[in-house]
Protein backbone atom coordinates (compact mmCIF):
# COMPACT_ATOMS: atom_id res chain seq x y z
CA UNK A 1 0.00 0.00 0.00
CA UNK A 2 1.37 3.43 -0.93
CA UNK A 3 1.48 5.90 1.91
CA UNK A 4 3.10 9.25 2.54
CA UNK A 5 6.11 9.62 4.80
CA UNK A 6 4.03 11.49 7.36
CA UNK A 7 1.41 8.73 7.50
CA UNK A 8 4.10 6.12 8.01
CA UNK A 9 5.77 8.11 10.79
CA UNK A 10 2.47 8.51 12.61
CA UNK A 11 1.68 4.85 12.05
CA UNK A 12 4.95 3.57 13.46
CA UNK A 13 4.93 6.12 16.26
CA UNK A 14 1.42 5.22 17.33
CA UNK A 15 2.02 1.49 17.19
CA UNK A 16 5.28 1.79 19.11
CA UNK A 17 3.68 3.77 21.92
CA UNK A 18 0.76 1.37 22.10
CA UNK A 19 3.06 -1.67 22.10
CA UNK A 20 5.09 -0.23 24.97
CA UNK A 21 1.92 0.44 26.95
CA UNK A 22 0.84 -3.13 26.25
CA UNK A 23 4.07 -4.40 27.78
CA UNK A 24 3.78 -2.36 31.00
CA UNK A 25 1.81 -5.02 32.93
CA UNK A 26 4.36 -7.73 32.12
CA UNK A 27 7.22 -5.36 32.95
CA UNK A 28 5.53 -4.59 36.26
CA UNK A 29 5.39 -8.26 37.21
CA UNK A 30 8.92 -8.90 36.04
CA UNK A 31 10.53 -5.92 37.77
CA UNK A 32 8.60 -6.62 40.97
CA UNK A 33 9.86 -10.19 40.93
CA UNK A 34 13.55 -9.29 40.69
CA UNK A 35 13.68 -6.52 43.30
CA UNK A 36 13.30 -6.51 47.08
CA UNK A 37 9.86 -5.62 48.40
CA UNK A 38 10.85 -2.35 50.10
CA UNK A 39 12.33 -0.99 46.85
CA UNK A 40 9.12 -1.79 45.00
CA UNK A 41 7.16 0.43 47.35
CA UNK A 42 8.89 3.39 45.73
CA UNK A 43 7.69 2.19 42.31
CA UNK A 44 9.44 -0.39 40.13
CA UNK A 45 10.25 2.29 37.55
CA UNK A 46 12.38 4.08 40.12
CA UNK A 47 15.95 2.88 39.55
CA UNK A 48 17.87 4.91 42.16
CA UNK A 49 20.14 2.50 44.04
CA UNK A 50 18.30 -0.41 42.48
CA UNK A 51 19.23 -3.95 43.49
CA UNK A 52 18.39 -6.89 41.30
CA UNK A 53 18.10 -10.29 42.87
CA UNK A 54 16.64 -13.73 42.33
CA UNK A 55 15.97 -13.99 46.04
CA UNK A 56 12.18 -13.74 45.56
CA UNK A 57 12.25 -16.74 43.26
CA UNK A 58 14.33 -18.78 45.70
CA UNK A 59 11.97 -18.02 48.56
CA UNK A 60 8.83 -18.64 46.49
CA UNK A 61 10.31 -21.91 45.28
CA UNK A 62 11.12 -23.00 48.83
CA UNK A 63 7.65 -22.08 50.04
CA UNK A 64 6.11 -24.85 47.97
CA UNK A 65 5.98 -23.40 44.49
CA UNK A 66 8.27 -26.20 43.32
CA UNK A 67 5.65 -28.86 43.89
CA UNK A 68 2.94 -26.71 42.29
CA UNK A 69 5.09 -26.42 39.17
CA UNK A 70 5.72 -30.18 39.12
CA UNK A 71 1.98 -30.85 39.44
CA UNK A 72 1.31 -28.44 36.58
CA UNK A 73 3.67 -30.35 34.33
CA UNK A 74 2.18 -33.73 35.24
CA UNK A 75 -1.38 -32.55 34.62
CA UNK A 76 -0.59 -30.62 31.46
CA UNK A 77 1.64 -33.17 29.74
CA UNK A 78 -0.76 -35.98 30.62
CA UNK A 79 -3.78 -34.08 29.33
CA UNK A 80 -2.11 -32.95 26.12
CA UNK A 81 -0.78 -36.45 25.36
CA UNK A 82 -4.15 -38.11 25.92
CA UNK A 83 -6.15 -35.41 24.11
CA UNK A 84 -3.84 -35.37 21.09
CA UNK A 85 -3.68 -39.19 20.83
CA UNK A 86 -7.41 -39.85 21.18
CA UNK A 87 -8.30 -36.67 19.29
CA UNK A 88 -6.15 -37.55 16.27
CA UNK A 89 -7.63 -41.05 16.08
CA UNK A 90 -11.17 -39.74 16.31
CA UNK A 91 -10.54 -36.96 13.80
CA UNK A 92 -9.43 -39.51 11.21
CA UNK A 93 -12.83 -41.18 11.49
CA UNK A 94 -14.69 -37.85 11.41
CA UNK A 95 -12.86 -36.72 8.27
CA UNK A 96 -12.29 -39.90 6.26
CA UNK A 97 -14.96 -42.39 7.34
CA UNK A 98 -18.72 -42.35 7.57
CA UNK A 99 -20.53 -43.77 10.54
CA UNK A 100 -23.88 -43.70 12.28
CA UNK A 101 -24.68 -40.64 14.43
CA UNK A 102 -21.58 -38.86 13.11
CA UNK A 103 -23.35 -35.48 12.94
CA UNK A 104 -24.89 -35.87 16.36
CA UNK A 105 -21.53 -36.73 17.92
CA UNK A 106 -19.84 -33.85 16.16
CA UNK A 107 -22.54 -31.45 17.32
CA UNK A 108 -22.26 -32.65 20.91
CA UNK A 109 -18.46 -32.45 20.74
CA UNK A 110 -18.36 -28.84 19.62
CA UNK A 111 -20.80 -27.74 22.32
CA UNK A 112 -17.75 -27.98 24.61
CA UNK A 113 -16.38 -24.95 22.75
CA UNK A 114 -19.43 -22.91 23.73
CA UNK A 115 -20.72 -23.95 27.15
CA UNK A 116 -19.10 -22.79 30.38
CA UNK A 117 -17.16 -25.47 32.21
CA UNK A 118 -19.48 -24.79 35.15
CA UNK A 119 -21.96 -27.01 33.31
CA UNK A 120 -20.01 -30.08 34.44
CA UNK A 121 -18.16 -28.72 37.44
CA UNK A 122 -20.54 -29.33 40.32
CA UNK A 123 -21.37 -33.06 39.87
CA UNK A 124 -17.73 -33.86 39.09
CA UNK A 125 -16.70 -33.83 42.74
CA UNK A 126 -19.17 -36.55 43.87
CA UNK A 127 -18.54 -38.39 40.57
CA UNK A 128 -14.80 -38.50 41.36
CA UNK A 129 -15.64 -39.90 44.79
CA UNK A 130 -17.78 -42.63 43.23
CA UNK A 131 -15.00 -43.59 40.82
CA UNK A 132 -12.28 -43.40 43.47
CA UNK A 133 -10.59 -40.58 41.55
CA UNK A 134 -10.46 -38.38 44.64
CA UNK A 135 -7.72 -40.47 46.26
CA UNK A 136 -4.06 -39.42 46.14
CA UNK A 137 -2.43 -39.46 42.73
CA UNK A 138 -5.66 -40.77 41.16
CA UNK A 139 -6.69 -37.12 41.18
CA UNK A 140 -4.18 -36.55 38.38
CA UNK A 141 -5.87 -39.28 36.33
CA UNK A 142 -9.24 -37.71 37.06
CA UNK A 143 -8.37 -34.18 36.00
CA UNK A 144 -6.51 -35.45 32.91
CA UNK A 145 -9.68 -37.30 31.86
CA UNK A 146 -11.82 -34.19 32.42
CA UNK A 147 -9.42 -32.08 30.37
CA UNK A 148 -9.57 -34.72 27.64
CA UNK A 149 -13.36 -34.85 27.71
CA UNK A 150 -13.74 -31.08 27.71
CA UNK A 151 -10.94 -30.59 25.15
CA UNK A 152 -12.40 -33.20 22.80
CA UNK A 153 -14.44 -30.67 20.87
CA UNK A 154 -11.50 -28.37 20.22
CA UNK A 155 -9.34 -31.34 19.25
CA UNK A 156 -11.70 -32.67 16.61
CA UNK A 157 -12.65 -29.18 15.42
CA UNK A 158 -9.07 -27.96 14.93
CA UNK A 159 -7.47 -31.18 13.77
CA UNK A 160 -10.16 -31.81 11.16
CA UNK A 161 -9.09 -28.78 9.12
CA UNK A 162 -5.55 -30.17 9.01
CA UNK A 163 -6.61 -33.77 8.35
CA UNK A 164 -8.80 -32.59 5.50
CA UNK A 165 -5.76 -31.06 3.83
CA UNK A 166 -4.34 -34.54 3.12
CA UNK A 167 -5.02 -35.05 -0.62
CA UNK A 168 -7.75 -37.58 -1.38
CA UNK A 169 -5.69 -38.98 -4.24
CA UNK A 170 -3.02 -40.12 -1.81
CA UNK A 171 -5.55 -41.96 0.33
CA UNK A 172 -7.07 -43.60 -2.75
CA UNK A 173 -3.66 -44.68 -3.94
CA UNK A 174 -3.06 -46.18 -0.54
CA UNK A 175 -6.32 -48.07 -0.63
CA UNK A 176 -5.48 -49.52 -4.02
CA UNK A 177 -2.26 -50.83 -2.55
CA UNK A 178 -4.35 -52.61 0.06
CA UNK A 179 -3.48 -50.41 3.03
CA UNK A 180 -5.92 -50.57 5.94
CA UNK A 181 -7.34 -47.41 7.48
CA UNK A 182 -5.03 -47.94 10.46
CA UNK A 183 -2.02 -48.02 8.11
CA UNK A 184 -3.22 -44.93 6.33
CA UNK A 185 -3.74 -43.12 9.60
CA UNK A 186 -0.28 -44.00 10.83
CA UNK A 187 1.81 -43.80 7.68
CA UNK A 188 0.06 -41.12 5.67
CA UNK A 189 -2.25 -38.82 7.59
CA UNK A 190 -0.25 -38.46 10.80
CA UNK A 191 3.01 -37.42 9.15
CA UNK A 192 1.27 -35.04 6.75
CA UNK A 193 -0.88 -33.45 9.43
CA UNK A 194 2.00 -33.23 11.92
CA UNK A 195 2.34 -29.43 11.79
CA UNK A 196 -1.36 -29.15 12.55
CA UNK A 197 -1.06 -31.62 15.39
CA UNK A 198 1.83 -29.61 16.84
CA UNK A 199 -0.27 -26.45 16.58
CA UNK A 200 -3.12 -28.05 18.45
CA UNK A 201 -0.79 -29.54 21.06
CA UNK A 202 0.65 -26.09 21.82
CA UNK A 203 -2.78 -24.51 22.13
CA UNK A 204 -3.98 -27.35 24.33
CA UNK A 205 -0.83 -27.11 26.46
CA UNK A 206 -1.43 -23.41 27.07
CA UNK A 207 -5.12 -24.02 27.74
CA UNK A 208 -4.54 -26.80 30.30
CA UNK A 209 -1.54 -25.11 31.91
CA UNK A 210 -3.61 -21.97 32.43
CA UNK A 211 -6.66 -23.70 33.88
CA UNK A 212 -7.64 -22.46 37.31
CA UNK A 213 -11.26 -23.47 37.80
CA UNK A 214 -11.07 -27.25 37.36
CA UNK A 215 -7.95 -27.62 39.47
CA UNK A 216 -9.26 -25.32 42.19
CA UNK A 217 -12.43 -27.37 42.41
CA UNK A 218 -11.25 -30.94 41.98
CA UNK A 219 -7.80 -31.25 43.52
CA UNK A 220 -6.57 -31.43 47.09
CA UNK A 221 -3.80 -29.12 48.24
CA UNK A 222 -0.74 -31.22 47.43
CA UNK A 223 -1.94 -32.07 43.92
CA UNK A 224 -2.81 -28.56 42.81
CA UNK A 225 -1.04 -26.83 39.90
CA UNK A 226 0.71 -23.46 39.87
CA UNK A 227 -2.37 -21.43 38.89
CA UNK A 228 -4.13 -22.46 42.09
CA UNK A 229 -0.97 -21.85 44.10
CA UNK A 230 -0.82 -18.39 42.58
CA UNK A 231 -4.47 -17.63 43.29
CA UNK A 232 -3.97 -18.69 46.92
CA UNK A 233 -0.76 -16.69 47.27
CA UNK A 234 -2.55 -13.61 46.00
CA UNK A 235 -4.35 -11.92 48.85
CA UNK A 236 -5.16 -8.27 49.29
CA UNK A 237 -4.40 -8.51 53.00
CA UNK A 238 -0.88 -9.90 52.68
CA UNK A 239 1.96 -7.70 51.56
CA UNK A 240 3.91 -10.33 49.66
CA UNK A 241 4.00 -8.90 46.17
CA UNK A 242 7.59 -10.08 45.92
CA UNK A 243 6.58 -13.75 46.23
CA UNK A 244 3.40 -13.36 44.20
CA UNK A 245 5.18 -11.72 41.28
CA UNK A 246 7.84 -14.42 41.25
CA UNK A 247 5.06 -17.00 41.24
CA UNK A 248 3.29 -15.19 38.41
CA UNK A 249 6.44 -15.12 36.28
CA UNK A 250 6.98 -18.85 36.91
CA UNK A 251 3.38 -19.53 35.94
CA UNK A 252 3.78 -17.54 32.74
CA UNK A 253 7.15 -18.91 31.72
CA UNK A 254 6.45 -22.39 30.27
CA UNK A 255 3.68 -21.28 27.88
CA UNK A 256 5.76 -18.25 26.98
CA UNK A 257 8.82 -20.33 26.13
CA UNK A 258 6.66 -22.66 24.07
CA UNK A 259 5.04 -19.69 22.36
CA UNK A 260 8.34 -18.01 21.47
CA UNK A 261 9.92 -21.24 20.27
CA UNK A 262 6.93 -22.32 18.20
CA UNK A 263 5.19 -19.00 17.55
CA UNK A 264 4.40 -19.90 13.96
CA UNK A 265 2.59 -23.12 14.90
CA UNK A 266 0.59 -21.40 17.60
CA UNK A 267 -0.62 -18.63 15.33
CA UNK A 268 -1.31 -21.09 12.51
CA UNK A 269 -3.46 -23.19 14.84
CA UNK A 270 -5.51 -20.20 15.94
CA UNK A 271 -5.75 -19.10 12.29
CA UNK A 272 -7.36 -22.43 11.49
CA UNK A 273 -9.84 -21.90 14.29
CA UNK A 274 -10.49 -18.30 13.34
CA UNK A 275 -10.90 -18.42 9.58
CA UNK A 276 -12.88 -21.63 9.31
CA UNK A 277 -15.56 -20.28 11.65
Amino acid sequence: MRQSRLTLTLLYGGLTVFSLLWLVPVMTAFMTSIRPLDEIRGGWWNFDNATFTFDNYVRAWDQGLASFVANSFIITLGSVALTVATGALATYAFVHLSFRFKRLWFFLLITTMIVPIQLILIPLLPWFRTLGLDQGAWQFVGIVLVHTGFGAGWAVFMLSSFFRAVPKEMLEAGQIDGASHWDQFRRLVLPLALPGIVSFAIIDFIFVWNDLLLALTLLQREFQPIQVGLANLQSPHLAQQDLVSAGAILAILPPLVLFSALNRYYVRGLFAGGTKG
Partner: protein
Amino acid sequence: MERRDRAHVMSGRALERPDRESRLAYAFVFPLLLAFVFFYLWPAFNTLAGSLFRWGLLNPWSIAQPADWDFVGLQNYVDTLTSARFWNAAINTGIWLVIFPILVTVVSLVLSIRIWQTPRAGATFRTVFILPMTISLAAAGVIWTFMYDPDFGVLTRFVEWAGIDFAIDWGPIRFQTSQWLSDPGIIDLGFSQIRLVNLSLIVAGFWAFTGFGVITFTAGLTAVSSELVEAAQVDGATTRQVIRNVLIPQLKGPMTVVATISVIFALRTFDVVWVITQGGPAQDSEVLAVLLWKQAFVFLDSPQAGLATAVAIIMSAVLIVGAWPYLRGLTREKT
Protein backbone atom coordinates in the same frame (compact mmCIF):
# COMPACT_ATOMS: atom_id res chain seq x y z
CA MET B 1 -19.33 -43.05 -2.27
CA GLU B 2 -18.06 -42.29 -5.71
CA ARG B 3 -14.53 -42.35 -4.48
CA ARG B 4 -14.92 -45.80 -3.00
CA ASP B 5 -16.65 -47.16 -6.06
CA ARG B 6 -13.79 -46.07 -8.22
CA ALA B 7 -11.27 -47.61 -5.87
CA HIS B 8 -13.31 -50.79 -5.93
CA VAL B 9 -13.32 -51.02 -9.72
CA MET B 10 -9.65 -50.33 -9.98
CA SER B 11 -8.48 -52.59 -7.19
CA GLY B 12 -11.05 -55.33 -7.39
CA ARG B 13 -11.24 -55.23 -3.62
CA ALA B 14 -14.64 -55.96 -2.10
CA LEU B 15 -16.67 -52.86 -1.46
CA GLU B 16 -16.66 -52.00 2.23
CA ARG B 17 -20.19 -52.34 3.53
CA PRO B 18 -21.46 -49.25 5.37
CA ASP B 19 -21.99 -51.02 8.69
CA ARG B 20 -18.50 -52.42 8.52
CA GLU B 21 -17.10 -48.96 7.93
CA SER B 22 -19.28 -47.67 10.74
CA ARG B 23 -17.91 -50.26 13.13
CA LEU B 24 -14.35 -49.50 12.06
CA ALA B 25 -14.99 -45.78 12.55
CA TYR B 26 -16.26 -46.40 16.06
CA ALA B 27 -12.99 -48.14 16.88
CA PHE B 28 -11.25 -44.88 15.95
CA VAL B 29 -13.55 -42.57 17.90
CA PHE B 30 -14.07 -44.89 20.87
CA PRO B 31 -11.18 -43.73 23.13
CA LEU B 32 -12.09 -40.06 22.75
CA LEU B 33 -15.80 -40.67 23.21
CA LEU B 34 -15.09 -42.66 26.36
CA ALA B 35 -13.56 -39.62 28.08
CA PHE B 36 -16.16 -37.37 26.46
CA VAL B 37 -19.15 -39.40 27.64
CA PHE B 38 -17.91 -40.11 31.16
CA PHE B 39 -16.39 -36.72 31.92
CA TYR B 40 -18.56 -34.35 29.91
CA LEU B 41 -21.94 -35.73 28.88
CA TRP B 42 -22.60 -37.63 32.09
CA PRO B 43 -21.71 -34.77 34.47
CA ALA B 44 -23.63 -32.34 32.24
CA PHE B 45 -26.67 -34.62 32.47
CA ASN B 46 -26.22 -34.79 36.25
CA THR B 47 -26.16 -31.00 36.43
CA LEU B 48 -29.40 -30.85 34.49
CA ALA B 49 -31.09 -33.58 36.54
CA GLY B 50 -29.63 -32.32 39.83
CA SER B 51 -31.08 -28.86 39.23
CA LEU B 52 -34.50 -30.35 40.00
CA PHE B 53 -33.49 -31.40 43.51
CA ARG B 54 -32.45 -29.77 46.75
CA TRP B 55 -28.96 -30.81 47.78
CA GLY B 56 -25.51 -29.69 48.93
CA LEU B 57 -22.10 -31.07 48.27
CA LEU B 58 -21.78 -32.62 51.74
CA ASN B 59 -24.66 -34.86 50.78
CA PRO B 60 -24.65 -34.78 46.97
CA TRP B 61 -27.59 -35.73 44.79
CA SER B 62 -27.02 -39.07 43.14
CA ILE B 63 -29.08 -40.82 40.52
CA ALA B 64 -28.30 -44.13 42.23
CA GLN B 65 -29.86 -43.18 45.58
CA PRO B 66 -33.53 -42.36 45.01
CA ALA B 67 -34.14 -42.79 48.75
CA ASP B 68 -32.22 -39.55 49.42
CA TRP B 69 -33.87 -37.48 46.69
CA ASP B 70 -35.48 -34.21 47.72
CA PHE B 71 -37.38 -33.37 44.54
CA VAL B 72 -38.34 -29.72 44.23
CA GLY B 73 -39.26 -29.47 40.54
CA LEU B 74 -38.43 -26.06 39.11
CA GLN B 75 -38.15 -24.46 42.54
CA ASN B 76 -34.37 -23.94 42.15
CA TYR B 77 -35.02 -21.94 38.98
CA VAL B 78 -37.79 -19.95 40.62
CA ASP B 79 -35.60 -19.21 43.66
CA THR B 80 -32.68 -18.27 41.44
CA LEU B 81 -34.65 -15.99 39.16
CA THR B 82 -36.28 -14.21 42.10
CA SER B 83 -33.13 -13.75 44.18
CA ALA B 84 -31.55 -10.32 44.39
CA ARG B 85 -28.08 -11.83 44.51
CA PHE B 86 -28.63 -13.64 41.19
CA TRP B 87 -29.75 -10.42 39.51
CA ASN B 88 -26.82 -8.55 40.99
CA ALA B 89 -24.51 -11.14 39.40
CA ALA B 90 -26.53 -11.12 36.20
CA ILE B 91 -26.13 -7.33 35.90
CA ASN B 92 -22.39 -7.57 36.50
CA THR B 93 -22.16 -10.32 33.88
CA GLY B 94 -24.31 -8.12 31.63
CA ILE B 95 -21.75 -5.32 31.93
CA TRP B 96 -19.08 -7.80 30.82
CA LEU B 97 -21.29 -8.99 27.97
CA VAL B 98 -21.75 -5.50 26.58
CA ILE B 99 -18.39 -3.83 27.19
CA PHE B 100 -15.91 -6.68 26.74
CA PRO B 101 -16.83 -7.83 23.19
CA ILE B 102 -17.01 -4.23 21.93
CA LEU B 103 -13.66 -3.35 23.48
CA VAL B 104 -11.94 -6.49 22.16
CA THR B 105 -13.45 -6.33 18.67
CA VAL B 106 -12.93 -2.61 18.03
CA VAL B 107 -9.42 -2.34 19.45
CA SER B 108 -8.12 -5.52 17.84
CA LEU B 109 -9.68 -4.51 14.52
CA VAL B 110 -8.04 -1.09 14.58
CA LEU B 111 -4.70 -2.54 15.68
CA SER B 112 -4.77 -5.26 13.02
CA ILE B 113 -5.49 -2.79 10.23
CA ARG B 114 -2.81 -0.38 11.43
CA ILE B 115 -0.28 -3.20 11.64
CA TRP B 116 -1.35 -4.43 8.20
CA GLN B 117 -0.60 -0.92 6.85
CA THR B 118 3.01 -1.01 8.00
CA PRO B 119 5.37 -2.18 5.28
CA ARG B 120 7.81 -3.64 7.83
CA ALA B 121 7.99 -4.92 11.44
CA GLY B 122 4.35 -6.00 11.44
CA ALA B 123 5.25 -9.37 12.97
CA THR B 124 6.98 -7.70 15.92
CA PHE B 125 3.99 -5.52 16.76
CA ARG B 126 1.66 -8.48 16.36
CA THR B 127 3.76 -10.58 18.74
CA VAL B 128 3.48 -7.91 21.43
CA PHE B 129 -0.32 -7.99 21.31
CA ILE B 130 -0.57 -11.76 21.00
CA LEU B 131 1.83 -12.39 23.88
CA PRO B 132 -0.65 -11.81 26.76
CA MET B 133 -2.84 -14.55 25.27
CA THR B 134 -0.36 -17.13 26.51
CA ILE B 135 -0.52 -15.72 30.03
CA SER B 136 -2.97 -17.46 32.32
CA LEU B 137 -5.92 -15.39 33.46
CA ALA B 138 -4.88 -16.11 37.05
CA ALA B 139 -1.47 -14.55 36.38
CA ALA B 140 -3.10 -11.71 34.45
CA GLY B 141 -5.27 -11.11 37.49
CA VAL B 142 -2.23 -10.97 39.75
CA ILE B 143 -0.45 -8.60 37.40
CA TRP B 144 -3.42 -6.23 37.20
CA THR B 145 -3.72 -6.24 40.97
CA PHE B 146 -0.22 -4.74 40.90
CA MET B 147 -1.25 -2.23 38.25
CA TYR B 148 -4.21 -1.06 40.36
CA ASP B 149 -2.41 -1.14 43.72
CA PRO B 150 -3.47 1.97 45.68
CA ASP B 151 0.10 2.55 46.95
CA PHE B 152 2.53 1.63 44.19
CA GLY B 153 0.42 0.67 41.19
CA VAL B 154 1.52 2.16 37.89
CA LEU B 155 -1.95 3.52 37.20
CA THR B 156 -2.33 5.11 40.61
CA ARG B 157 1.07 6.74 40.45
CA PHE B 158 0.56 7.88 36.88
CA VAL B 159 -2.68 9.60 37.80
CA GLU B 160 -0.91 11.40 40.66
CA TRP B 161 2.09 12.30 38.54
CA ALA B 162 0.01 13.63 35.67
CA GLY B 163 -2.16 15.60 38.08
CA ILE B 164 -5.39 14.00 36.88
CA ASP B 165 -6.26 12.66 40.30
CA PHE B 166 -9.87 13.69 40.75
CA ALA B 167 -13.30 12.68 41.91
CA ILE B 168 -16.61 13.65 40.39
CA ASP B 169 -20.09 13.42 41.84
CA TRP B 170 -22.75 14.43 39.35
CA GLY B 171 -26.06 13.17 40.58
CA PRO B 172 -26.31 9.59 39.39
CA ILE B 173 -22.66 9.39 38.30
CA ARG B 174 -19.89 9.05 40.84
CA PHE B 175 -16.33 8.40 39.80
CA GLN B 176 -12.89 8.70 41.33
CA THR B 177 -9.42 7.76 40.20
CA SER B 178 -6.90 5.79 42.23
CA GLN B 179 -9.41 3.52 43.99
CA TRP B 180 -9.63 1.23 40.99
CA LEU B 181 -10.57 -1.91 42.87
CA SER B 182 -12.05 -0.72 46.16
CA ASP B 183 -14.37 2.09 45.09
CA PRO B 184 -14.04 3.55 41.60
CA GLY B 185 -17.66 4.69 41.60
CA ILE B 186 -21.11 3.90 40.28
CA ILE B 187 -23.60 4.94 37.64
CA ASP B 188 -27.07 4.94 39.11
CA LEU B 189 -29.70 3.99 36.55
CA GLY B 190 -32.58 4.22 38.97
CA PHE B 191 -33.71 0.60 38.68
CA SER B 192 -30.17 -0.66 39.18
CA GLN B 193 -26.59 0.43 39.57
CA ILE B 194 -23.59 -0.10 37.37
CA ARG B 195 -20.54 -0.61 39.57
CA LEU B 196 -17.44 0.73 37.84
CA VAL B 197 -15.19 -1.82 39.56
CA ASN B 198 -16.40 -4.22 36.88
CA LEU B 199 -14.72 -2.02 34.28
CA SER B 200 -11.38 -2.35 36.10
CA LEU B 201 -11.72 -6.12 35.82
CA ILE B 202 -12.87 -5.97 32.19
CA VAL B 203 -9.72 -4.02 31.30
CA ALA B 204 -7.60 -6.87 32.70
CA GLY B 205 -9.53 -9.45 30.68
CA PHE B 206 -9.36 -7.23 27.61
CA TRP B 207 -5.58 -6.91 27.89
CA ALA B 208 -5.26 -10.68 28.12
CA PHE B 209 -7.65 -11.50 25.28
CA THR B 210 -7.13 -8.88 22.57
CA GLY B 211 -4.42 -11.02 20.93
CA PHE B 212 -7.11 -13.44 19.82
CA GLY B 213 -8.76 -10.66 17.83
CA VAL B 214 -5.43 -9.59 16.34
CA ILE B 215 -4.73 -13.16 15.19
CA THR B 216 -8.19 -13.61 13.70
CA PHE B 217 -8.27 -10.26 11.90
CA THR B 218 -4.74 -10.76 10.59
CA ALA B 219 -5.87 -14.08 9.12
CA GLY B 220 -8.75 -12.22 7.47
CA LEU B 221 -6.50 -9.44 6.16
CA THR B 222 -4.02 -11.83 4.54
CA ALA B 223 -6.94 -13.17 2.53
CA VAL B 224 -7.66 -9.71 1.06
CA SER B 225 -6.13 -9.59 -2.40
CA SER B 226 -3.50 -6.91 -2.84
CA GLU B 227 -4.72 -6.31 -6.42
CA LEU B 228 -8.04 -5.14 -5.03
CA VAL B 229 -6.29 -2.63 -2.78
CA GLU B 230 -3.99 -1.45 -5.55
CA ALA B 231 -6.86 -1.12 -7.99
CA ALA B 232 -8.73 1.04 -5.51
CA GLN B 233 -5.68 3.24 -5.05
CA VAL B 234 -5.14 3.60 -8.78
CA ASP B 235 -8.71 4.82 -8.94
CA GLY B 236 -7.72 7.52 -6.47
CA ALA B 237 -9.08 6.11 -3.22
CA THR B 238 -7.50 7.48 -0.05
CA THR B 239 -6.19 5.19 2.67
CA ARG B 240 -9.27 5.91 4.71
CA GLN B 241 -11.53 4.97 1.80
CA VAL B 242 -9.58 1.79 1.16
CA ILE B 243 -10.00 0.76 4.80
CA ARG B 244 -13.68 1.59 4.93
CA ASN B 245 -14.76 0.33 1.52
CA VAL B 246 -12.35 -2.48 0.75
CA LEU B 247 -10.99 -3.92 4.00
CA ILE B 248 -13.89 -3.67 6.45
CA PRO B 249 -16.43 -5.40 4.18
CA GLN B 250 -13.97 -8.28 3.75
CA LEU B 251 -13.62 -8.66 7.51
CA LYS B 252 -17.28 -9.36 8.30
CA GLY B 253 -16.56 -13.07 8.91
CA PRO B 254 -13.64 -12.53 11.30
CA MET B 255 -15.65 -9.82 13.08
CA THR B 256 -18.43 -12.31 13.78
CA VAL B 257 -15.90 -14.84 15.06
CA VAL B 258 -14.18 -12.35 17.39
CA ALA B 259 -17.47 -10.98 18.70
CA THR B 260 -18.92 -14.46 19.26
CA ILE B 261 -15.86 -15.82 21.05
CA SER B 262 -15.63 -12.65 23.19
CA VAL B 263 -19.26 -13.00 24.21
CA ILE B 264 -18.59 -16.59 25.26
CA PHE B 265 -15.49 -15.47 27.14
CA ALA B 266 -17.44 -12.71 28.90
CA LEU B 267 -20.26 -14.98 30.00
CA ARG B 268 -17.89 -17.65 31.32
CA THR B 269 -15.49 -15.25 33.01
CA PHE B 270 -14.27 -16.47 36.39
CA ASP B 271 -10.49 -16.45 36.82
CA VAL B 272 -9.82 -12.73 36.55
CA VAL B 273 -12.61 -11.83 38.95
CA TRP B 274 -11.72 -14.61 41.37
CA VAL B 275 -8.07 -13.63 41.59
CA ILE B 276 -8.49 -9.86 41.71
CA THR B 277 -11.58 -9.27 43.86
CA GLN B 278 -13.29 -12.61 44.56
CA GLY B 279 -16.46 -10.76 43.61
CA GLY B 280 -15.95 -7.89 46.01
CA PRO B 281 -16.06 -5.35 47.46
CA ALA B 282 -19.23 -6.89 48.95
CA GLN B 283 -20.83 -8.32 45.79
CA ASP B 284 -20.03 -5.40 43.52
CA SER B 285 -18.08 -7.45 40.98
CA GLU B 286 -19.67 -10.84 41.55
CA VAL B 287 -20.40 -12.39 38.15
CA LEU B 288 -22.55 -15.48 37.56
CA ALA B 289 -19.61 -17.89 37.43
CA VAL B 290 -18.34 -16.64 40.79
CA LEU B 291 -21.78 -16.72 42.39
CA LEU B 292 -22.25 -20.30 41.20
CA TRP B 293 -18.89 -21.37 42.56
CA LYS B 294 -19.58 -19.83 45.97
CA GLN B 295 -23.02 -21.44 46.13
CA ALA B 296 -21.66 -24.87 45.31
CA PHE B 297 -18.27 -24.93 47.01
CA VAL B 298 -18.10 -22.25 49.70
CA PHE B 299 -21.33 -22.64 51.64
CA LEU B 300 -20.84 -26.38 52.00
CA ASP B 301 -23.12 -26.78 55.00
CA SER B 302 -26.16 -25.17 53.40
CA PRO B 303 -27.70 -27.20 50.59
CA GLN B 304 -27.24 -24.66 47.79
CA ALA B 305 -25.65 -26.90 45.17
CA GLY B 306 -29.09 -27.41 43.59
CA LEU B 307 -29.32 -23.64 43.12
CA ALA B 308 -25.80 -23.55 41.69
CA THR B 309 -26.68 -26.21 39.11
CA ALA B 310 -29.70 -24.12 38.12
CA VAL B 311 -27.38 -21.15 37.51
CA ALA B 312 -25.07 -23.40 35.46
CA ILE B 313 -28.00 -24.59 33.33
CA ILE B 314 -29.23 -21.03 32.79
CA MET B 315 -25.74 -19.89 31.68
CA SER B 316 -25.30 -22.88 29.37
CA ALA B 317 -28.78 -22.51 27.90
CA VAL B 318 -28.15 -18.86 27.07
CA LEU B 319 -24.91 -19.75 25.31
CA ILE B 320 -26.22 -22.77 23.42
CA VAL B 321 -29.35 -20.96 22.24
CA GLY B 322 -27.28 -17.91 21.26
CA ALA B 323 -24.69 -19.98 19.44
CA TRP B 324 -27.18 -22.40 17.89
CA PRO B 325 -26.80 -21.15 14.28
CA TYR B 326 -23.03 -21.14 14.68
CA LEU B 327 -22.99 -24.72 16.03
CA ARG B 328 -25.36 -25.93 13.30
CA GLY B 329 -23.30 -24.22 10.63
CA LEU B 330 -20.07 -25.76 11.87
CA THR B 331 -21.61 -29.22 12.02
CA ARG B 332 -22.95 -28.96 8.50
CA GLU B 333 -19.67 -27.63 7.18
CA LYS B 334 -17.36 -30.10 8.86
CA THR B 335 -19.10 -33.47 8.62
